[in-house]
């Protein structure tokens, strides 16, 4: 009979190294990021330490168990429902005072606990001194200092972990308890008396937690037998004030606990990273830095990736070698034409699906993720948000929204997922609209750029139109959805760090792997769907339907094919456009119109499916309709404009 592996949860705010610890323990590669919002769900892994097998659970960034954000609710549910055998709080050494507020709450749960004070390398650089042995005595739990990035403290942590698990050591006595103001005390006493059963948690702790538990959460907890409240229990009217006062209390407590044990110099030294940071956020030099970075992206992703690398893989490897070879084999050994078609026909799984994925999309997307991970690891993204906030608030968005929007340039699906980090629904909705409508993904960008760059002004025109649509729709939405709320922008700017190669590579690989796993099946499915539709004639019917509106904007019948493909996979459409141009069926203005319409047209199938999952069918339908209408209107406008000079 084997016992289940002990559960160990890693809890703490964003950017402290939880995910790095997770990776060190489990030899896995969850994506570690420098800005909040990357671990958006629990990650579970197995750690094999000596003869012990442990289950490690990484949580999203948590500031308090009095959960306000979705991520914190996930962490709290973990504590309540799974009651881990050991809780490791990972804290930032430089900001230990505010980290201890969470410690107070975790100690209240009574679960076995270890405090890991990480980022000691930065603390030492700043001249901060921490007496962890004394702190450990005061808190009644093991306290370990570490610098995981330098691999320091890891072995001590393992020893402490195994020790606590072996002896099932619960937290000892703390030197002093938090002193709540009368307001909170009164609530706690009153509420505790209404809690019927409390399981392994103290009634006072549960009263505190109830402040931020919705009725649904309470009912669920009760159903699972965790605790029971009297039916007369109601959340107090001054709930928010109570929560604020509680947090103030924990902070005052942490200052008392740390007296004499934590010492920080009067003011932080100004070193090179400070100066560089200044350079990046000053309006003039900061814009220069941004432009430089964008240029860097263009060079690596556009020129190297979409240009040379794709050329190498697509033309020389696939088109000249692999595909003819496979075509040969398939034509010889597979008797059925329909099957041959499915595999190597014009929309075949191999000729379209796999070729485009491996030879055209992957190189570009991989390089984009590489560049993105590089600036992310260095800590540039919050500074970019800081710089652009005033601009982007004109279209009703928070500076934080630049992050999903930038990611959308790599893959729109990923951008939609990251909108989870935006606070208000309104911001999420506006950002999603912009992503689906006017942010081309790198796959699409690659092909359109290489296509239009021959046409001289074509590329600029395309860019201007997309930009106008982006700003215009953003502005309209912000007015339409406005509730007269004042814009708020509040963001931590973590210190600039030198990007670490291992970290950048692991992030890039994790993202590329995600892309391949999530998106490649869609490619294959898309090939199959198109093939099937072609077989039963549905493809033709659909295209016939689209011809009239397309002719109204000066485009040939073949364009309908491109748009249908473009929906299934954005880059298919762009690729189709490429093919069409090569066969010289289009004149230059038509190419531009089609490029614009294609870019603005529906989000690709993968993105749409994520959208439905994240925000529901109604919003997704609105996005689909809006993009269809806006893309056609933009095409119409351009057509009328060009008609002044050209005969279509």
């Amino acid at each position, binding site marked *: 009979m084997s016992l289940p592996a002990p559960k160990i949860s890693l809890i703490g*705010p964003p950017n402290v190294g939880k995910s790095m610890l997770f990776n060190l323990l489990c030899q896995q590669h969850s994506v570690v990021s420098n800005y909040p919002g990357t671990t958006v769900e629990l990650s579970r892994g197995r750690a094999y330490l000596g003869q012990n097998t442990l289950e490690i659970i990484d949580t999203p960034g948590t*500031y*308090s168990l009095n959960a*306000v*954000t979705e991520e914190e609710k996930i962490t709290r549910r973990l504590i309540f429902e799974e009651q881990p055998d050991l809780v490791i709080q990972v804290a930032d050494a*430089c*900001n230990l*005072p*505010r980290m201890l507020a969470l410690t107070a709450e975790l100690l209240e749960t009574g679960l076995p606990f270890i405090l890991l004070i990480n980022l000691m390398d930065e603390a030492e650089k*700043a001249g*901060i001194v921490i007496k962890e042995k004394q702190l450990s005595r005061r808190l009644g739990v093991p306290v370990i200092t570490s610098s995981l990035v330098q691999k320091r403290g890891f072995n001590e942590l393992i020893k402490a972990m195994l020790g606590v698990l072996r002896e099932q050591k619960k937290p000892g006595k703390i030197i002093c308890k938090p002193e709540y103001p009368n307001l909170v005390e009164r609530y706690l006493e009153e509420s505790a008396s209404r809690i019927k059963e409390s399981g392994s948690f103290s009634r006072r702790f549960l009263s505190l937690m109830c402040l931020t538990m919705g009725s649904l959460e309470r009912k669920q907890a009760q159903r699972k037998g965790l605790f029971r409240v009297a039916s007369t229990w109601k959340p107090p009217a001054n709930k*928010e004030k109570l*929560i*604020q006062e509680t*947090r*103030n209390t924990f*902070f005052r407590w942490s200052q008392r606990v740390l007296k004499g044990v934590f010492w*920080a110099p*009067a*003011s*932080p030294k100004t070193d090179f990273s400070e100066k560089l940071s200044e350079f990046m*956020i000053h*309006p003039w030099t900061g814009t220069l830095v941004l432009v430089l970075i964008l240029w860097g992206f263009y060079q690596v992703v556009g020129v190297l990736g979409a240009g040379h690398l794709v050329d190498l893989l697509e033309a020389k490897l696939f088109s000249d070698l692999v595909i003819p070879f496979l075509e040969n084999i398939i034509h010889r050994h597979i008797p059925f034409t329909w099957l041959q078609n499915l595999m190597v026909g014009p929309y075949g799984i191999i000729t379209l699906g796999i070729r485009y994925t491996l030879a055209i999309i992957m190189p570009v997307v991989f390089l984009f993720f590489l560049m993105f991970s590089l600036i992310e690891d260095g800590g540039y993204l*919050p500074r970019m*948000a*800081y*710089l652009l*906030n*005033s601009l982007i*608030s004109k279209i009703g968005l928070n*500076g934080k929204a630049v992050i999903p929007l930038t990611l959308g340039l790599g893959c729109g699906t990923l951008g939609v997922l990251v909108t989870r980090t935006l*606070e208000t629904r309104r911001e999420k909705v506006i950002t999603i609209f912009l992503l689906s409508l006017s942010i081309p993904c790198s796959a699409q960008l690659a092909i359109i750029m290489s296509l239009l760059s021959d046409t001289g002004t074509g590329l600029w025109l395309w860019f201007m139109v997309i930009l106008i649509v982006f700003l215009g729709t953003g502005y309209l939405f912000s007015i339409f959805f406005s509730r007269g709320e*004042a*814009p*708020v*922008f*509040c*963001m*931590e*700017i*973590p*210190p600039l760090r030198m990007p670490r190669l291992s970290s950048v590579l692991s992030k890039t690989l994790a993202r590329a792997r995600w892309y391949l796993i999530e998106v490649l099946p869609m490619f294959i499915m898309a090939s199959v769907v198109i093939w099937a539709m072609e077989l039963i004639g549905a493809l033709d019917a659909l295209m016939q339907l689209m011809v009239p509106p397309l002719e109204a904007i000066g485009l040939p019948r073949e364009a309908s094919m491109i748009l249908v493909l473009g929906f299934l996979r954005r880059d298919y459409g762009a690729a189709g456009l490429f093919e069409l141009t090569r066969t010289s069926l289009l004149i230059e203005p038509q190419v531009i119109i089609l490029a614009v319409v294609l870019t603005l047209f529906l989000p690709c199938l993968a993105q749409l499916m994520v959208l439905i999952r994240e925000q529901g069918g109604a919003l997704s339908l609105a996005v689909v309709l809006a993009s269809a209408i806006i893309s056609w209107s933009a095409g119409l406008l351009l057509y009328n404009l060009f008609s002044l000079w050209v005969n279509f």
Partner: protein
Amino acid sequence: MSRNQHKKKDKLSQLKPGDKARIERIEKLPFFLVYRMQSLGIFEGREVYLKRNHPEFLIRVGYTMIAINYHIASKVTVSKLPPSSIIG
């Protein structure tokens, strides 16, 4: 001036880069925002150092650098500290 100057209350938005102040009160702001600010260390009683005021406000509280916009800064009441104060 005969009035006692050292309890003068200002708004955070009125401070100039380089000023140090103690946070006295946080006025009416959405709950989740105050929660976020507290999580980053912005509490009543804490000392804050203003680094920049454009394009947005950049403040340092403890060892944390935080960017906030004008709207938020205008809702935080502070009392200016003489320049020689220690940052806590």
